[in-house]
């Protein structure tokens, strides 16, 4: 329920979205910078062009050949854009010449007082860029060095086409950027999806793992990915451990249930057999003794299971170990009073050292084995591959009068739960 409430996000989608967004932002910024640069360049070119036309005008200033020795503008050799406006003034403010066809109002607007240099003005909703500069025209330079005639040149051109060109440039950049964005975006999505596929494969495999299905085999593409390989390997290891633990738990429960059911079946069948037909008092007595034995066996079984459950609950620390010989000696010591009672000589002989990975405190686990041995005395039994135990029977009832045997550690542990194989992994 809680996990259902959590809003999930796709890492690959976020990554693809992020990269595309960054790419778009980059394209937008690049376009803006390109447009700005384009506008600046065109404006500078326009200014240079204005200056060039104004210089041409200055060059067109001629001697008016009048008695007052005035100068005038002779535009006959000039090729100027028809929409441009100009005016050439003498230092006294007299108009030496102006663009033909320009209205007086427009010329008045151009001639309005401005500092020398570039300026803008608007006339009849038309934007103009204008240049005002003071120049000196040397007339008749060949004769006595010429006469210097200062003039003021005013030259303006409409900027409408400038904006039009700028818009065209903007459109070009935007379309080019969009095309580039589309092409690189598709390539990027394909590339990212391809490169992120190991992540998706890992997520898909991990998503299929459940308590019923433990299969987790990371694909080679995942294992080849530097960032994912440690995660996949850790998960694989973890799941193997978990699966093993689950299987062990299931096996333990199954074994325990089997043992308990069998013991109950023994008890129940003994009781039912006893009551099946009328019997003599002796038969009932024998039957009750058998039942007592059955219940004792069941008690022992429950005790073994509890011991095993304790072991399962708190796994043995592999770092701890103890000498098996001391455990066998302990078991033998506990058996000694019973052995003496039965006139059995009990001894422990150590042939080789055997260290087992088990805390010394868990030697109590051998208690069920001890009980079993006590029940078997003086029957031969096996105790340990390393430390051996032997006993002899003084009575000559059996003929041989002596048993010697080894007891295997596995047998002792198997005595805890006979059907449970100790060779199980883990």
């Amino acid at each position, binding site marked *: 329920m809680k996990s259902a409430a959590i809003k999930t996000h796709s890492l690959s989608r976020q990554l693809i979205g992020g990269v595309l967004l960054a790419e778009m932002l980059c394209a937008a910024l690049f376009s803006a910078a390109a447009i700005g640069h384009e506008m600046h360049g065109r404006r500078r070119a326009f200014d240079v062009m204005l200056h060039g036309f104004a210089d041409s005008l200055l060059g067109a200033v001629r001697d008016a050949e009048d008695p007052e020795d005035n100068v005038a503008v002779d535009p006959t050799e000039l090729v100027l854009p028809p929409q441009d406006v100009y005016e050439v003034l003498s230092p006294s403010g007299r108009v030496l010449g102006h663009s033909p066809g320009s209205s007086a109002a427009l010329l008045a607007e151009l001639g309005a007082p401005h500092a020398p240099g570039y300026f803008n003005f608007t006339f009849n909703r038309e934007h103009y860029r204008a240049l005002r500069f003071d120049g000196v025209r040397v007339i008749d330079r060949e004769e006595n060095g010429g006469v210097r005639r200062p003039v003021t040149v005013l030259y303006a051109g409409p900027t409408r086409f400038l904006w039009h060109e700028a818009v065209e440039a903007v459109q070009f950049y935007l379309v080019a950027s969009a095309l580039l964005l589309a092409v690189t975006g598709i390539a990027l999505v394909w590339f990212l999806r391809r490169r992120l596929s190991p992540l998706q494969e890992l997520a898909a495999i991990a998503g299929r793992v459940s308590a019923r299905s433990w299969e987790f085999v990371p694909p080679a593409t995942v294992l080849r990915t530097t960032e994912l390989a440690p995660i996949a390997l850790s998960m694989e290891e973890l799941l193997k451990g978990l699966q093993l633990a689950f299987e062990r738990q299931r096996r333990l429960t*199954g074994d325990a*249930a*089997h043992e308990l*059911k*069998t013991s*109950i*079946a*023994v*008890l*129940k*069948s*003994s009781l*039912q*057999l006893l009551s*099946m*037909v009328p019997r003599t008092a002796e038969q009932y007595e024998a039957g009750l003794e*058998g039942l007592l*034995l*059955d219940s004792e*066996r069941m008690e022992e079984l429950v005790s073994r299971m509890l011991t095993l459950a304790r072991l399962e609950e708190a796994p043995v620390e592999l770092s701890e170990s103890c000498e098996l010989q001391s455990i066998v000696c302990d078991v033998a010591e506990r058996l000694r009073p019973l052995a003496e009672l039965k006139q059995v000589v009990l001894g422990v002989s150590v042939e080789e050292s055997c260290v087992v990975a088990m805390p010394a405190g868990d030697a109590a686990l051998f208690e069920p084995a001890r009980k079993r041995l006590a029940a078997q005395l003086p029957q031969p039994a096996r105790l340990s591959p390393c430390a051996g135990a032997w006993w002899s029977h003084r009575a000559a009832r059996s003929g041989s009068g002596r048993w010697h045997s080894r007891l295997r550690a596995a047998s002792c542990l198997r005595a805890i739960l006979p*059907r449970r194989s100790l060779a199980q992994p883990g």
Partner: protein
Amino acid sequence: MRVLVVEDEVRLANNIAEALRQRCGFAVDCAENGTDGAALTEFKHYDLLLLDLMLPGLDGLSIVRQVRRRKDMTPILILTARDQPAQVVELLNAGADDYLAKPFDLGELLARAMALIRRGKGAAQPVLTVGRISLNTVEQTVRCAGELIDLSPTEYRLLEYLIFRPRAIVSARELLEHLYDYNWQHHSNVIEAHISNLRKKLRAVGEETSIVTLRGRGYRLEAPERQL
């Protein structure tokens, strides 16, 4: 009838064997592990196999497979502490005839055992009739025209075995193999003596059905054609 009980829990095996002997009059052999149990089934002396599922040596399921692989149709009843549907299906598919989950009721076990033996011999009803003789396998009684015939347990077992195979020649050896367990000293003259007594008791109630001795071959339960 002879039953094989393969159960590693000796106390339980003894209880089952004792109940089968006392209540059903069956001869019972016990095996403590799967290997011995599988070896005993090869003799084909048994009318029912009672197998525990988890056995040392060879598990019950493997024994079932071995028996069925030999085309041995002996009924098999499985005793199991694991009664999950999947396991039951696997058991039945392998060739087991029935199963009983532990801890079971001894009465139910005996009833199922008798029913399986009966069905294995081709009889659907617990009361078998040949001529005027009717044999009740549940009550273990024999009547002739409604009159109770007092038979010893061995005589009853002999008649029951022969009634399951009317008109068929049954050798003394087969009777010994199916009516006595492994511990019994086999002597064919024991059978002869019991057959003789059985004949006398049947004649005493005027029964026409007779047990014919075919020298060197065995015995045959004969009854008038119309009465079979």
